[in-house]
Structure formats: structure tokens, C-alpha cells
């Protein structure tokens, strides 16, 4: 599963010990700072301009010792990628596509062949100039079998690597196997960072890209350092350098921030208790990444009773997403109303069915499932899972559904529970373009289709949407697809949650959305 559990996967470490430890930690810290009333969490990061220079120290959850700097790999060191590399296309703050290494791109009339104009005067860290050959090589590298890139599953049905053309040094032509008006959005994925032509063997260690920082040192699952790349095409970054440290335990990460040993905790969604402690500290505070986490309660549509669409509808109508947001997120998020497309996405459809326990009861009766009892699996993998499950349990009671919440071990949760138990809790990062989201998670037979939902009519609708070259009309079709998923699909989406990120009070210019992190603008005050 490409992007999803990327962060979580790393923070599981010792979840049992750590979970209780962090609880103890926050409790103690709250007690000791004398904060009797819980302080409110700040709304956003501190505004203001950073001073030039300085070194930012980032603590990250360690990946495995097999991690690599090859962006295409399933084991890429995610936190380095955006600093070392650029993509052809990225997602802007408004959720729409924005130019990165491609200055512009256009399809032919049928959206079957895409032409990308590659930016001129862009240098790699080793001094070589970027050309379209590098872009073509990157795509071939992702598609190559030996790379085993998760993004290959998305791109391989579309691209024949042998047919990529580079008519001149700054033009890349990509003929597609089938028309796709959303193709460039698939290249915003973090597996798609551009690497130099012919670099596949060494890229995992050298990290040579066109990004605002260049690699000084890197140890898998260990510390590393990157320094400002003065010849970066968009100007040099504010910072002189970034030090990365890997800290496995979540309470250890927040202790490091509170003690002033690091300035930012990357990929850590702090639990509310810890977040309050951090926000109350003199050294550190909380920044929010709005609607960054997409929480799901997938129902396996191949397992009883969820094979019956009426039961799935009842499960959705039975609970109140607003209640779940209030209880599980303490308000720090947006109700999802079972629509997986986040509210920040331009394609998001606002309309949704109302919470209706009576209708749910009625549907269950018709399906012969009156007084339904279901097991809902959670774990300490993510601090929100269990509160979400309990809030759902509480809410669904009104429709006569009895939910038994079962806690599974965190470290094997994604191999033993996910996509195996009929009903469980999970999450993804948001920031996936709408076509990729539907293709990867909802299309019949796709590898991350976590509800095993397969509906020919829905797949046909997706095909129609991606072939539609009229933007307005395409957006309508993606709207229909959302309605389809809400009405018939197996995924309940109770909410989108803000990610609570711990940062030092010295940090300025922190900006993050989806998979985008602003490495250029971030800096320190008094650096």
C-alpha cells in the first residue's frame, strides 16, 4: 500500500510499552507543570519570517534498517525525499496540480498522449543538468520489475516504458495505453521523484536529486544530515542544513522536543494528552496539518453480513460522524460522512445522506439482520483507532447495532487484521489525487482495495471519468463516483483528522499538506 501506513508503520515500535509510557509521561508532565485545566491547542503554526541559515533538527520514527533513499522503493526514507528531490508535478496548497520540474504539460485531444515541458537550467546535486532523459529514466525505473515500486501497480496499466519519447532535451512524451485526463496527478506521488539517468544502482545511497538540499550523510534507520543546495533552481532554502535523527518511542520523541534537543517531530500525530503538554511548554508548541489523516472503518464486502448492501448502508446511517469527531478527535477534524475524498480536494462533493438510525433499523430488518452484532477490531497502532471505535459503538447503539470492540496487537495489525477481519479501524494520509484514490482503494481487484469491493458499474464510471477531457464534466463524474461509494461501497469514513505536529517555538514557515512539506521556506527564528 503505497503511501498509507507509511508513518504509522514506523511508530508502532513497542506500542504496548510505549503506549502506556507516553500516557504516563503526559500524565506526569501535566501534573508537574501544574496545568490543572487542559490548555487549548493552538490553531496553527507561528507565523512570521525565519532568519536565514541555521540547522533544523528533525526527529523521525525510524524505518527498518533496509530503508533507502531510492524514492521509487517501498522502503524509501520518506522524510528525506522532498528535500533531496523534485517531481515533475506536485500538488499545490489549493489541492490542484502545480508545476515542479515540468513547467507545463498538455494532453492530445483524447488525453491519450501527454507532453511534458521540462524546466531548463535545473541542476542535479552533482552538477549535471536535468533533461527529459532523466524524467523518462525515472518512469522506467519505477516500472522496472526489480525496483518493486508500489507505484508501478498504478502506472504499469497506463505506460509502456518502451514507448516513452524524448524528442528534445526538454520535452517528454508519454503515450498511454488508455486515455487518462488525470494522468499528471498520478505523478505527484512520492514514489515519483526524479532521479538522474542511469542512477538506479547508487541512488539509494547517494540521494542525488534536484531538490533544495543535498545529502551529506545517511544511515538507514539512523541519523543523517542534508545541507542547503545553493544552485537550486528555485533559489536556496532558508536553512543551512537539516539534521535527521531517528527516535522510535513516541514519548521519547516528545521528550526530545520538550528538552530542546530537536525542533520538529516529523510524521507523528501526537495524542491529545501529549499535544497539550507540548503546547503548554515554553520551548515547543503544536502545528496542525488540517484534515491530514483519513480515518476509515472498512467493511469487507466479501464477508457476511457485509455482503448485503443494505447492511452496509445501515452501518453507515446508524452512526453520527459528528459525534465521532467530537469524541474521538475532540473536535480537531471534519466529519467524513463516508465520503473518502477529503474536503480540501477540489473534487470533493459536499452533499451526503443524513444520520438516520431509524432508517438503519428499517434496512437491517429488511435484510433479516435485526439486532445485528459485529466485532470491530482496533489496536494501539494509532492513538485514534480505539476512541474512534468506541465512539462508533456508542453512536450505532441507537440503531440497535451491537458493536464489540476488540483490541489486536499493534505490530502485526497490518498483516493479521487489515484486509482480513470483516470490520476494523484504519487510516491513510490524505493528499492523494482523486483518480489515484479511487483507482487504488476502490476499484475492483486493485491491491489496496481494503473492502474487497468490486462493482463493474463503478469501475466503468471511473473509466469514463478519466477519459473525459472536459474538466467540468470530469469533476461531475468524480462527484458521481463519490455518491456511488457512499451509497454502495464498503468503507465507512467517519472523519478526516488534523495531524498534531510538535514543533519548537523557534520554527517559522512550517507548511505541510498531503505529502507536501515546504523545505524551501521553513527556518528558525534566532538561528
Amino acid at each position, binding site marked *: *500500500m*503505497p503511501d*498509507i*501506513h*507509511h508513518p504509522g*508503520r514506523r511508530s*508502532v*515500535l*513497542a506500542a504496548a*510499552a*510505549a503506549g*502506556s*509510557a507516553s500516557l*504516563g*509521561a503526559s500524565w*506526569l*508532565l501535566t501534573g*508537574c507543570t501544574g496545568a490543572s485545566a487542559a490548555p487549548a491547542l493552538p490553531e496553527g503554526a507561528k507565523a512570521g519570517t525565519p532568519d536565514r541559515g541555521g540547522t533544523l*533538527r528533525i*526527529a523521525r520514527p*525510524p*524505518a*527498518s*534498517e*533496509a530503508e533507502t533513499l531510492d524514492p521509487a522503493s*517501498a*522502503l524509501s526514507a520518506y522524510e528525506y525525499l522532498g528535500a533531496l528531490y523534485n517531481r515533475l508535478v506536485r500538488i499545490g496548497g489549493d489541492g490542484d496540480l502545480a508545476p515542479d520540474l515540468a513547467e507545463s504539460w498538455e494532453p492530445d485531444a483524447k488525453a491519450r498522449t501527454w507532453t511534458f515541458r521540462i524546466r531548463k537550467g535545473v541542476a542535479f546535486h552533482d552538477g549535471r543538468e536535468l533533461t527529459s532523459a532523466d524524467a523518462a529514466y525515472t518512469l522506467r525505473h519505477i516500472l522496472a*520489475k526489480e525496483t*518493486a515500486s*508500489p507505484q*508501478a*501497480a498504478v502506472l504499469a496499466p497506463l505506460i509502456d516504458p518502451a514507448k516513452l519519447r524524448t524528442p528534445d532535451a526538454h520535452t517528454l512524451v508519454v503515450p498511454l495505453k488508455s486515455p487518462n485526463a488525470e494522468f499528471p496527478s498520478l505523478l505527484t506521488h512520492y514514489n515519483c521523484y526524479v532521479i538522474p539517468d542511469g542512477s538506479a544502482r547508487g541512488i539509494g545511497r547517494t540521494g542525488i536529486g534536484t531538490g533544495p538540499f543535498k545529502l551529506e550523510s545517511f*544511515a*538507514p*534507520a*539512523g*541519523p543523517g544530515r542534508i545541507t542547503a543546495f545553493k544552485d537550486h533552481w528555485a533559489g536556496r532554502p532558508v536553512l543551512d542544513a537539516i539534521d535527521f*535523527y*531517528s*527516535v*522510535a*518511542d513516541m*514519548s*521519547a*520523541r516528545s*521528550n*526530545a522536543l*520538550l*528538552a*530542546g*534537543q*530537536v525542533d520538529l517531530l516529523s510524521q507523528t500525530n501526537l495524542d491529545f494528552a501529549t499535544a497539550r503538554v507540548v503546547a503548554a*511548554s515554553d520551548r515547543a508548541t503544536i502545528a496542525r496539518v488540517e484534515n491530514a489523516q483519513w480515518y476509515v472503518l472498512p467493511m469487507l464486502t466479501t464477508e457476511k453480513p457485509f455482503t448485503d448492501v443494505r447492511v452496509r448502508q445501515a452501518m453507515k446511517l446508524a452512526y453520527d460522524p459528528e459525534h465521532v469527531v467530537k469524541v474521538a478527535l475532540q473536535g480537531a477534524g471534519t466529519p467524513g460522512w463516508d465520503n473518502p475524498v477529503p474536503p480540501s480536494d477540489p473534487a470533493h462533493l459536499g452533499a451526503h445522506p443524513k444520520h438516520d438510525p431509524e432508517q438503519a433499523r428499517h434496512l437491517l430488518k429488511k435484510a433479516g439482520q435485526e439486532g445485528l452484532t459485529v466485532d470491530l477490531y482496533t489496536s494501539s497502532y494509532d492513538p485514534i483507532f480505539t476512541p474512534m471505535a468506541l465512539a462508533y459503538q456508542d453512536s450505532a447503539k441507537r440503531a440497535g447495532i451491537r458493536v464489540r470492540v476488540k483490541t489486536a*496487537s499493534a*505490530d*502485526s495489525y*497490518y*498483516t*493479521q487484521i487489515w484486509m482480513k477481519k470483516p470490520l476494523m479501524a484504519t487510516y491513510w494520509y490524505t493528499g492523494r489525487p482523486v483518480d489515484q484514490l479511487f483507482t487504488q482503494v476502490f476499484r475492483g481487484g486493485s491491491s489496496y482495495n481494503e473492502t474487497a469491493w468490486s462493482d463493474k458499474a463503478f469501475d466503468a464510471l471511473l473509466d469514463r471519468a478519466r477519459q473525459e477531457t472536459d474538466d467540468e464534466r470530469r469533476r461531475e463524474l468524480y462527484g458521481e463516483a463519490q455518491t456511488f461509494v457512499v451509497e454502495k461501497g464498503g468503507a465507512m469514513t467517519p472523519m478526516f483528522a488534523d495531524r498534531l505536529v510538535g514543533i519548537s517555538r523557534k520554527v517559522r514557515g512550517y507548511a505541510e499538506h498531503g505529502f507536501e512539506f515546504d523545505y524551501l521556506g521553513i527556518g528558525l527564528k534566532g538561528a
Partner: protein
Amino acid sequence: MLSFIARRVLAAVGTLVLSSVLVFLAVQALPGDVATQVLGKDATPDAVAALREKLELDQPAWERYADWIGGAVHGDFGLSLVSGKAVGGEVSMYLGNSALIALVTVLFAVTGSIVLGIVAGLYRDRWPDHLISTVSLIGMSVPEFVVATVLVLCFSVALPLFPAVVLYGPEATVGQLMPAVWLPALALAVVMAAYIVRMARTSVIDVMAGEYVTTARLKGLSTWRVVTRHALPSALLPTLHVIALNVAWLAGGVAVVENVFNYPGIGKLMLASVQNRDLPVIQAIALISALVYVVCNLAADLGAMALNPKLRTRGRTR
């Protein structure tokens, strides 16, 4: 005496063999497919299948056990599934870092707690005894991560004397690790010392009530001399066992504390390996922990024999 030693050593070896079997079985029973867990959830089915084959997961368990134990006897624990490096080298690097903490902990805990135990014993039922006994009871009951967190709060966050976490990797030098050793060692020492204090106190009370102490007193020796020359050696004897058991406990108890401090020691490696299902590493660590345990116990028994004339001569008189 020789036969006693021989029997003791034989029992120790037996324990080790038994624990190696248990370790192997327990690791096999871990939930989650090894190949999936090692490659991460983004892995393609092809890669998973290839790894399963490479790991020879299709071979019968007893054959894999024989392979493993055969290598382990020669110090060859195989290759890490995750990093691909030799397990032996990796484990010893982390083990060295943990040994640093263990050494400081034992120094803290043993010297501190024996002194406290003797004071408590000498002032039995008076306020120093009450104070020491209460505090050690608290130390015994509070889990080590709470003690560690309080120490971080006091000496890293509020009063920045020591680092809250270690930011270096396992290759860190002793010099780099030294500033970070004190808090974890103190946290472990607090938990560990409690037991030793209570044991030492009881021994001192027993010994001080003994006839030879009364005789020594009657000879006109000062309390100080009675304690150091006569009472202390006898009182240390039963304490030795408790110390040995606690040193063995360190091997396991250090895991939680290392995680709180992000200390690159064997406990942290263990947790990471369990999470990644890095079987060769888990097995090596578990076996080494068992070895430490057995050796500590053996040392305590033999040490006790060396110190205690009664035990020493028992073999001969029989």
C-alpha cells in the same frame, strides 16, 4: 566440592539448551507472516514470495533449529533479515552500549543499596529505617518507565543537565554516550536497588542478633568495627544472590528504559527486531539474555560457596 561445581555447571548448560528450544519455538509462534513483516506493507506479492523462499520457511522447523543452534555454538547467528549484516557483529555492538548502562547501574545500585540496607538494619524500627524502607518499597512498586520519565522531566526538561534522549546511532562512541548514561542507569538502579536494600537490611538484622556479634561487642570492639569486620561479610552473602538475579533482570528490564531514552542498546534492538520479525536477531538476543541469566546465577552460587565455609566443605564431608 568439584562434583557440586560440575553438577551446577551441567544444570546451567541444560537450562541453556532448554531455553534455546523455547526461544526458537516462541519466535516461530509470533503472529504475522515473516516475509510480509520484513518487507513492509508496501511490498509486492512477488517480493514476499521470493523472500519466503530465501528464508527456507518451507523447511521443517527442527531442521531450521538444528541449523541455527549449530551456528550459534560457533558464534554464527546468521544474517539479519532486515539489514543483511551479520547478526553477531550487530548484536555485540548494541550489547556493548547496554553494558555501559548496566555497569553504571550496578555500581550505583550495589554500593548505594548496600549502604542504605546496612543503615536501615542498624537503625531498625527507628526513623532512618522507616524512611529507607518506605522509599525502597515505592521504588519497587513504580515501573521503570515512570521513574525514567520523572527523571527526564526533572533533569532534562526542567533542569537541563542531561540529554532527554540519545540522538546518536549504535555506532556512537563511549564518549558520546557517556552524558546520556546517567539517567537510564539511575532509573534502573532505583528499581533494582529496592530489592537489594531490603535483603541487605534483613541480613544485617539477622547477623547483628547473632552470638558472635554479641561476643565481639563484649570484647569491647566499636560498633563500626563490629559491622565492617564481622557483620558485613556475613550479611553480604545472601545479598549476593539478589544482586546476581537483578543483574540478570537488567538484561530484560533495560529494554523499556532504553526505549524511553532512545538509547541504542540491546533492548531497543530487541523491540525493533520483534517489530520487523527479524528472526535471527530476536533469537540471538533471547539466547544471549538466557546466557547472561544462567551465568549470573551460576556465578552467584559459586560465589556463595567461595564465601561460605559451610557450603564449601559440604561436598568433602559427604
